């Protein structure tokens, strides 16, 4: 393979990986924007989304088949289910804590994530679970570059979801309310915005996006594991920080950048694939040292 082929291949890999990161990073950044909380459980919602998609697909496969139609319907149902799970988590665990010291909220979020993770560990006995989708192996060839239909559909769906989110936030009344709450919660309440409803919607949308990424990842990679949310949660956070935490376009950009950095980074001499994760966490630490507000973020004051 020539240098050019390696380049185009890694570009494609980076875009696919980046789409997953971006979808998960969006939830992080939205929740952070509205309630100033780092939702540690977010990576686990991606994992639960994968398993929810698997569960729905195993019921629907006899009727819709294990192809993209079945996967798409399962993905939508998983998004709705996990969206509600996100709202329940917010109501039960976070809402009573929002006025507590920051440390207590962080530990509560960690506890929620451990409950989800170990709950799934108990259910699956720690085994890998095959997703059960059959998506075929077709694709198109551009020179030496093979792009599978699956990759195209995956990136396309991710792009459509992000576009829909952008329109939702910038054009609808709920989106405007969300932006108002993220600027000043108390002032938004005085203007007649139902802040609790806005927080609920934010958790719903963020969790649903993570579930979409989880189901697609399950269908694309073929198997699920109770621990799969841990690493992507960390990566998505890194992506959100690169783009500027709290900024929606920043999360999309950050996800893509991190995906590309990882796929090109593993090609560097001395950075084999076994160092991939070290590479991304080092990027995170460097970004926090030199540009903590990220590419598109605004400088912010520590909450008192």
């Amino acid at each position, binding site marked *: 393979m020539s240098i050019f082929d390696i380049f185009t291949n890694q570009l494609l890999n980076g875009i696919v990986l980046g789409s997953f990161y971006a979808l998960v990073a969006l939830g992080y950044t939205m929740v952070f924007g509205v309630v100033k909380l780092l939702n540690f459980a977010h990576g686990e919602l991606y994992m639960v989304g994968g398993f929810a998609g698997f569960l729905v697909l195993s019921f629907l496969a006899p009727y819709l088949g294990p192809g993209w139609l079945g996967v798409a319907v399962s993905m939508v149902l998983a998004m709705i289910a996990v969206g509600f799970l996100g709202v329940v988590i917010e109501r039960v665990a976070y809402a009573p804590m929002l006025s507590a010291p920051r440390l207590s909220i962080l530990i509560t979020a960690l506890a929620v994530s451990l409950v989800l993770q170990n709950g799934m*560990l108990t259910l699956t006995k720690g085994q890998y679970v095959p997703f059960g989708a059959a998506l075929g192996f077709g694709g198109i060839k551009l020179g030496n570059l093979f792009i599978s239909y699956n990759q195209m559909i995956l990136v396309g769906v991710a792009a459509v979801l992000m576009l829909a989110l952008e329109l939702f936030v910038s054009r609808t009344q709920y989106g405007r309310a969300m932006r108002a709450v993220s600027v000043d919660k108390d002032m938004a309440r005085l203007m007649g915005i139902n802040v609790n409803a806005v927080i609920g919607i934010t958790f719903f949308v963020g969790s649903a996006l993570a579930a979409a990424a989880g189901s697609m990842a399950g269908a694309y990679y073929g198997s699920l594991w109770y621990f799969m949310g841990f690493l992507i949660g960390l990566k998505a956070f890194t992506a959100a920080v690169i783009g500027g935490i709290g900024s929606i376009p920043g999360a999309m950009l950050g996800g893509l950048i991190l995906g590309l950095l990882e796929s090109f980074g593993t090609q560097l001499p001395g950075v084999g694939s076994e160092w991939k994760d070290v590479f991304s966490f080092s990027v995170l630490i460097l970004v*926090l040292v030199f540009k903590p507000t990220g590419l598109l973020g605004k400088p912010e004051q520590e909450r008192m």
Partner: protein
Amino acid sequence: MAQFPERPSAWGGLATLLDTPQKRYAAIAVILVAMAVAPYVFGSYGTVILTNALLYVLLALGLNIVVGYAGLLDLGFAAFFAVGAYTVGITTLHFGLNFWLALPLAILLAIIAGIVIGAPTLRLRSDYLAIVTLGFGEIVRITARNLRETGGASGLIGIDSPWLFGWHIRTPLDFYYVFCVLAILGVIASVRLANSRLGRAWLYVRHDEDAAEAMGINRVKVKLAAYIVGAIYGSIGGAFFAANLGAISPESFSFRQSVLILMAVILGGMGKIPGVILGAFIVILAPELLRDFGDLRLLIFAVGLLLIMLFRPSGIWPARSKSR
């Protein structure tokens, strides 16, 4: 006039319960005797478990300084534990260094690691520290897995047990008493720190960072000090852990390890030394008692942690009673 809340005591409610020196000396004597005879009561398997519990007491006391005293969430504490264990493992195996020379080196490296990770992130929102420490914990584990010097995924074996003035610390019983001494020293250092000028600064920073800064406390320095003291505790624990087992592998230093130490700190009651000790014993002894539950026991811990945070955020150990 408004009643000012009393300064929380590192002893939790114990200080009011044991209010005379006589009672305190009696309590200390009972604890020391219990520690001395415990191995003969619980047998050889019990001694190994108790040694492990004492290691956790030491680690949890260290993390307590970061989380309980300074109010910072560290999700990668196992990294310092790993730095201590691997420094001792590598220097004694590959360079033939004496354990007692490797120990200060391990502490030094943990301090450097603490500064490298802490100095940039402690300036930022305190939430960032949680995620960066999580990433740092993974970096250390993956590095240990991938390097030749650290023995890769299978780790290091054949680490020598140390000599102390002609005493070869070798049997499980020897190590039990070594960890007893370490835990006692850890408690004394924690209490002394809590009552020091630095301890009061941590209390201020935890309660109100801005007010503390206005009173002339350099919050970044003070937080960094807590982070470094925690790192020292972790590396000492790791060094003796390596000497005790004689073998270490990367999976001993995973995220789960960090979470278990954090649970020990929070379950018992962060900031309170008896609470942290209780927490460490719960974390180590509960799996022995819940053996039949298998995978469920981690879920039980996780649910317990969530319930504690929602209903009793100050932990199981009772706070100092108000009437005094």
